[in-house]
């Protein structure tokens, strides 16, 4: 599957946030989006998901334009920066709704000691984040959007999440954005940088210094 995002133009009141965005993501590759704070990365993910209506947009899947919001196709999962699973739901219900094996989760994160019968709000922020990331990654969605998946997660579990992303990219289009640069670079195959509302395809990571996303000398 090839997902193309083209010709995005987004304004908030009179302020131009995005214009001239082109991004191509495909099954088998993790596509990373970089950009400084406020560059429009999260807005772009919301546009792709179908929650935010820009002035112009063109989204194609395998060269076919998709006119309705992508979430209505049931092909896309979105891990937002904030907690998205309701606080009052039982953990086992979340796994049931997304059709995911609880045993699988327990095997990967056995040190967590989470009781599947407890309510979601009883988990810590990091545990909630882990469950949400796992649920979105393992659901049957063919397109997965991950907005800062490594934030608020312990290093040991970041490694597990990275392994999971690498394992699942064979069957999914994965688009990721994060400020934890090292982890982000470990999993990303293609890189785009959003700067001044435009997207730039990054062929060589050294370019990130040229575009002043990274300080000089960060990449040795």
């Amino acid at each position, binding site marked *: 599957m090839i997902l193309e995002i083209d010709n995005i133009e987004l304004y908030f009141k009179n302020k131009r946030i995005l214009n001239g965005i082109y991004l191509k993501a495909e099954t088998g590759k993790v596509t990373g989006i970089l950009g400084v704070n406020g560059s429009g990365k999260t807005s772009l993910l919301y546009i792709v998901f179908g929650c935010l209506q820009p002035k112009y947009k063109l989204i194609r899947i395998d060269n076919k334009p998709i006119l309705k919001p992508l979430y209505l*196709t049931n092909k896309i999962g979105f891990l937002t920066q904030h907690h998205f699973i*309701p606080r*009052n739901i039982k953990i086992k219900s979340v796994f049931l*709704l*997304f059709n995911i094996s609880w045993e699988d989760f327990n095997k990967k994160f056995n040190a967590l000691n989470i009781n599947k019968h407890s309510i979601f709000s009883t988990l810590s922020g990091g545990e909630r984040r882990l469950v949400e990331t796992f649920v979105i990654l393992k659901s049957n969605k063919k397109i997965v959007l991950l907005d800062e998946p490594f934030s608020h997660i312990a290093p040991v579990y970041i490694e597990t999440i990275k392994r999971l992303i690498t394992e699942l990219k064979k069957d999914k289009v994965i688009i990721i954005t994060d400020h934890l640069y090292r982890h982000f670079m470990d999993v990303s195959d293609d890189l785009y940088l959003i700067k001044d509302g435009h997207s730039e395809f990054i062929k060589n990571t050294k370019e990130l210094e040229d575009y002043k996303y990274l300080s000089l000398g960060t990449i040795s």
Partner: protein
Amino acid sequence: MKQLLSIYVFYRPFILWSLGVSFLFSIIGYNLIPIFIIKLVLIVFLWYLLANTSGSKKFIFYKNLGISNLKLFSSIFFIDICLNLPILLIFKEFV
């Protein structure tokens, strides 16, 4: 079925409020149809309120399950009618 379960998760915190509104307007003397019209207005108001505040974040969960806002709120309205109708009919027999 799973979509219905997730819609119920959204509706659950409002069940008692909904019953309270039904009983209140029933005691005042409203008939069933005006009560349901009031509830429709309240549901549209709730939708507007959530959509224009940080409450809109709550919708992401349902959208991840392929449920649009329209589907979510119209389902809640119909579930609410199905739940309230028999209760109100019995209640009206005694009041």
